[in-house]
């Protein structure tokens, strides 16, 4: 049995270093207030899938939804080594996790021979739940969550390492299985994630990515599978910090700062 891995690649809000209010007066996300990026945990999922393919052979398929910004995550997957890419023709902003998982599960079933699914454990911010666990439940797959790196893989098994509260553990699962990944690999390993390759950019310059509509997947009304709704969004009162620069060369300044903070000032 060879490995056919599906990577769920999501374009998500880039919540790093947000400046200014995110919400408008009605409590909705302001257009242009937040840009998007390839979800880092999904990048780790892609990198892990490509490493498994290098270990045992097989195929990597990238799966995503309609774009919400300017980042074409599926082209990025092809440029980094994915064998094929498929877009689900639905806007992810309109779907909660359960509804998105229903569509993704239908697409994975349609591919037919998938025995490994990899996805970021959760989007860093701005998502109410975890897609991987929902998918594992819907597909009836064994799951390992919070995987940081692949320890070993074979045609019929994967061993993933994950951090737990007081250490780490390695878990072996037989395929079919789902792995949801954190970001430690791409933070700790300077070789990860691999960059886009010029040759692959040329190869896929004119590649048309097929779009599977919800109707194609037998889920004509995906929003009907939603299990949560956003009742309200409100801005958190900004924690105003008067940040003071301390001159590292000024020993008396350092001493004064230490005296202040130790007194709780």
């Amino acid at each position: 049995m060879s490995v056919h891995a599906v990577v769920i690649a999501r374009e998500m809000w880039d919540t790093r270093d947000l400046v200014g209010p995110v919400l408008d007066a009605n409590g909705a996300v302001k257009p242009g207030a937040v840009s998007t990026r390839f979800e880092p945990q999904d990048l780790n999922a892609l990198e892990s899938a490509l490493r498994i393919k290098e270990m045992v052979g097989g195929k990597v398929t990238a799966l995503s939804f309609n774009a919400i910004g300017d980042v074409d995550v599926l082209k990025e997957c092809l440029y980094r080594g994915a064998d094929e890419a498929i877009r689900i023709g639905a806007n992810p902003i309109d779907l909660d996790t359960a509804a998105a998982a229903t569509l993704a599960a239908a697409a994975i079933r349609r591919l037919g021979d998938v025995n490994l699914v990899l996805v970021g454990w959760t989007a860093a911010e701005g998502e109410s739940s975890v897609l991987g666990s929902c998918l594992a439940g819907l597909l009836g797959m064994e799951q390992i969550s919070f995987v940081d790196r692949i320890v070993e893989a074979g045609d019929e098994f994967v061993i993933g390492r994950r951090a737990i509260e007081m250490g780490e553990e390695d878990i072996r699962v037989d395929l079919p299985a789902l792995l949801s990944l954190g970001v430690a690999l791409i933070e700790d390993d300077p070789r990860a994630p691999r960059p886009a390759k010029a040759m692959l950019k040329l190869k896929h310059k004119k590649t048309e990515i097929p779009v599977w509509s919800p109707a194609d997947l037998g889920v004509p009304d995906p929003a009907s599978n939603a299990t949560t709704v956003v009742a309200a969004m409100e801005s958190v009162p900004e924690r105003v910090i008067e940040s003071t620069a301390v001159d590292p060369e000024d020993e008396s300044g350092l001493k004064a700062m230490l005296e202040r903070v130790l007194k709780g000032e």
Partner: protein
Amino acid sequence: MSEILVYIQIVDGGAGDVSLQALACARSLADSTGGSVTALALGYDIGASVADLVELGADRLLVAEDDRLSHYLTGPYKRVVRSVLDANRFDVVLFPATTEGNDLAPLLAAELGCGCVVGCDAVHVKEGKTLFRRTEFDRKVHTDYEVTVGPAIATLRDGIADIPALGERRGEAQSIAVDLGPADTRAQVVNRDVVPKTVNLKASRVIVAAGAGVGGPDGFALVKDLAEALDAQMGATRAVVDAGWLPADHQIGQTGVTVRPDLYIACGISGAVQHWVGMSDSKTIVAINTDKNAPMMKRAHYRIEADLKTVIPKMIKALSA
């Protein structure tokens, strides 16, 4: 009226702190809506260590004990919790937002076809609806979620409630049968490296923490000297724990502990969200970093842009003067 189930995670042989906070949150919710609270604990030889859960807020305690439950593994734990959910009617099911809780909760929700919200900072009732609040968008936005298909499953973050003192509450405790099949034990832990807890960072008023930016053993030794000079506990990012410089119980952040000290000195810590969520409520933050653009430098009350190898000896000298 809310019938609430609280999943109690066993940590070091007893109920974990975040689970006890979730129990307190459930008690408050049940008292305000006229419902009841059931606590569920899974493990092996844990009966005595969870006996006081009734006094801490549960009306009923369910205990599942089996040697196959001696360590957490998704399959068998999911089977037992699922059997409890199938046999009882609950409106709300609460888990701690730990590795274990965040693993189990959404998986059960997917199997049951109900809604799940992970990493909640608050639970409140508004116009008869139970709402689960998450802090999102770089902690700039509170989002309240309503679960439209019940039971509502949620995981609750450290700090959601205070753990109450033992009370006079009386309730019922019962053992539940554990019925596991081969399909529940397909995954195997092939290696586990867990250290026993040696430090209580949550109780520390001053924490000096080291990140990857300390550079190596020499830099780390300096941070340790500063902690000793301040009579402080040492904290760490995951990179430092992975490097073996400090044991895992010193780790602060998403897969470590959440702390709220009076003073937090971050040495060589960039301030990635995985660490920030574990210490952002510190009263005063001092950051030492060579990178003035590191997120921690932008969020600290006092920022020192310098190589810690030059500035920490000066700080120690100032403290001893």
